[in-house]
Every structure is written in C-alpha cells, then in structure tokens.
C-alpha cells in the first residue's frame, strides 16, 4: 500500500511536475476514495518507463507519522538501483547567512545529497549552519543510512502563494540526468502554468 512520499510540498513543483512529466496513471492511498483528486498524497508512474515513480504530497506529514510513512513506502520498493530526488520549498527567512536575507536574491535553490549520490547537482550545496526538517529530512536521512543515492533540492522563496518565479526557480533541474528525458514541451507547460495561476487569483479576490 502506498502512503505519502517525498516532499513535494512545494506547490511550485506540483505545477511543473504534473504539467511536464505525467501522462499516466495514478493511485490513491485510500480504498474507499475513488477519485484521485481527493487524495493528498499521490503516486504517479510513467507508463513509458514503469521504473520511474513520482509522488506528490500536498499535505503535512506530522513528525510522529514520518517514520511509518517511510517504512511503508520504501518497504514496498526495491532498493537496489534506486535513486531518489526530493523537491521542497521553504521560506527564505529561515535561511541563515552572514548578510541579511533582505539583500539576498530569491528565490534560489540549494541542494543536499547523500554519500552515494555521485551525479552533478544543479545548484550549490546547502551550507552550514542551515538544516532541513520534516518529511524531506526524514526521506534524506533514510537514504543516507541505507546507502541509497538521493538528492534534495530546496527552494528558498519569499512568496507564500503560488507564483511563476518560484516555480521557474526549479528549472535548472530539467537539465539533470534524471529529469531531462521526462520534461514536457515548453509551450504546453507555459499554458498550464497560466491556468494554475488564474485559478488561485480568483480566490485572492476579496471583493465579490
């Protein structure tokens, strides 16, 4: 059974991921709930290549659930030859640096990788004393301990709502080995990006 998965709580990536990568089949975690859109944690598998899985987790997984989540998800996966990529966002105010965060150009990407991950990362590594928490940290810890190559891309952004600039901050990932072959056509992505943004804008309107 599937439960939640990598933290794709970056709503930004939700757009890019769904838009750019998938044209297949998804499953919900609940057997009583038939509609895929009702579930907060969805797994997608690439029809063309069933060894590629994508997980969208739009809900918060509490700290006392994270371990069980990991055990269930990774327990049903073959670990040999497995590679994991995690995408997440975080407020730029959480970023520790010598200068003030007001002078930083955001959004920006930082990465963390496990010992076994040998490929090139698409952005600078996250410097000390910065740390990562919650489900991304739980997944990366699991991969480090069990020697699975994994990389986490964390986007520091100063915008709390869905916006194109933060979404596009993840673009460097499209040139990575893993995602290059999965990227969709650029014009289609732009169209779907626009659609997502218009939907959210109507909710922001306080005037009826």
């Amino acid at each position, binding site marked *: 059974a599937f439960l939640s998965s990598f933290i794709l709580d970056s709503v930004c990536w939700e757009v890019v991921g769904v838009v750019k990568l998938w044209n297949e089949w998804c499953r919900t975690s609940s057997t009583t709930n038939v509609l895929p859109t009702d579930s907060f944690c969805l797994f997608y598998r690439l029809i063309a290549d069933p060894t590629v899985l994508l997980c969208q987790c739009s809900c918060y997984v509490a700290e006392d659930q994270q371990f069980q989540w990991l055990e269930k998800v990774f327990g049903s996966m073959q670990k040999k030859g497995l590679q994991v990529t995690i995408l997440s966002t975080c407020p730029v105010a959480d970023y*520790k640096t010598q200068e003030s965060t007001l002078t930083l150009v955001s959004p920006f990407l930082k990465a963390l*990788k496990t010992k076994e991950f040998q490929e090139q990362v698409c952005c600078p590594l996250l410097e000390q*004393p910065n740390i990562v928490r919650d489900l991304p940290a739980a997944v990366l810890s699991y991969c480090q301990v069990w020697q699975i190559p994994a990389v986490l891309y964390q986007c520091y952004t100063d915008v709390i709502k869905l916006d194109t600039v933060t979404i596009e901050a993840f673009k460097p990932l499209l040139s990575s080995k893993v995602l290059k072959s999965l990227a969709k056509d650029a014009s289609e992505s732009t169209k779907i990006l626009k659609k997502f943004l218009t939907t959210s804008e109507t909710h922001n309107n306080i005037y009826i």
Partner: protein
Amino acid sequence: MFIPCDRGGDAAAPDFKGFTLLMPAVSVGNVGQLAIDLVISTLDMTKVGYFYTDCLVPMVGNNPYATAEENSTELSINAEVYSLPSKKLVVLQIRSPFIKNKYRSFCETLLSWVKSSKCARVVLLSSSHAYQRDDEQLLGTPLRYLLTPDLEKAVGGRMKELNWKEMEKVAAYPGISDTDKVLHIPGGGITKLLFTESCSEGIQMAVLLKFCSEGDNIPDAFVLVNYLNEWLQLIKSEVSTNNNSTDPSSQWKIPSSWRLLFGNGHPPALF
C-alpha cells in the same frame, strides 16, 4: 538502532567493547549537546555510524564539524555515533528533540545497545533549570554529578578527590519535612529516566549536569566540558602564562556550525 557507516565487504563492524560512551541529554539550554559538539570537534572524531530511530524529529544538514571545503559536503542526520579508539571513547550526538511519547522507547533502545556493544560505562551530559534550585543550591558550584551504584564502587573515590558535589535529592512533597527524598532533575529531559533505568539494570552510568537557564549557553557548554575533562582528561589543560591558572577553555575547538546561532546579519537599511 546503531547502523555502521561502512558496511561493504570486509569492513568489520566497529567494536566498542570496554569503551566509554559519552552522550548528551536533550535538556535545558541544550548544554549537553553543545558540550558534545566541542568534544567531537576538538578531538577530531571520526563518524562511525548512525543511531537510526523513530523517536527523534528528523533533520539533515551538511557536516557540522567541517574544517575545509573538502569535508563540508558530508550529510549528517539527527543522531550519529563518533569514535576515538585511542582514547577508548565513543560519542553519540543527538541533534533534535524527542517525538512525543517516545522517551521510554528511546531509553530502552539505547540501553539495549549499550549492553549489546559491551561499553564499559556511559557518561551523560545534562543540565537542569537554574530557577528550580533551593537556597543551598544557589550558593557554590552549579555543577553536579550522579553515579549508578555499579560505577560508584569504581570511581566514587575519584569524585571525592576532585571535590565534586553530588546531586541532592529533594522532598517528594516540598514543605512537608518527613517525606521521602527523591531525585528531581527539572529540565533534564530523559536524564532521570536513563539514570534510574541504568541503576536497575546494573549499567555503569555517570551523569554530569549544570544548573542553567535558556539563553546564550555557550559559556555553560565550556564549563560543563571542562568539568568532564577534570575527570576523563580528554585534553591536556595547559597552564596559562598570563594569570598562572589552569584554564583549558581555549583548547576546545568551536565547530563551524556554531556560526549564526542568534540569527543573520542585520539589513543595512536599518540604520
């Protein structure tokens, strides 16, 4: 549970038989954890494994003891084990709080690991709320120690030589004079639980703690680690030529991860 870093081929699992296990309690001011950071950083200890558990809040980051570009990219998780065989020392560092209701489970896992790895003794660095001290405790040294009965036989004499003060027991019901005295370590996290469990399971454990408050706890960490050093002699205390006193504080190496403990730089537009 303990997972060694090197698990391939003919790499032998690390052997901790007869070693001293040094570990912190997640307690007020995080003093124990800061002191452990100083020990690992100064003695340049090697990471030998992870203590993988569902009892601690997950977190990851790059190497907190990095000294150069080359060693700064190693990933660290919330509980890791470091060792220094030349001093028969193994250190467990804990970097995040406990998940609710998981204290007991963690203590059980930890103590069973201590027994299975045949560590000679455990030294727990901890702290307790300074505001809970009674009138007598307000005077004199803020440092205390505790020994389980098994360790008392071995090193009790040394503590007397060092003129150390044992943690006092307090009345179970304050104000009523003829009640039983109990051990009370407010703000000490799992200290009391670990200590009482060790007593009943015959494990040799020493607790070293300092009374302190939340705030800038770096000086508290130095005091605690010097206290530990008086007994274990992990580093040599050199006599300072300036004031002719023995002050080893300058010999402890502050890790690179202690930068920016109190926030970022301020925006220049503020002034």
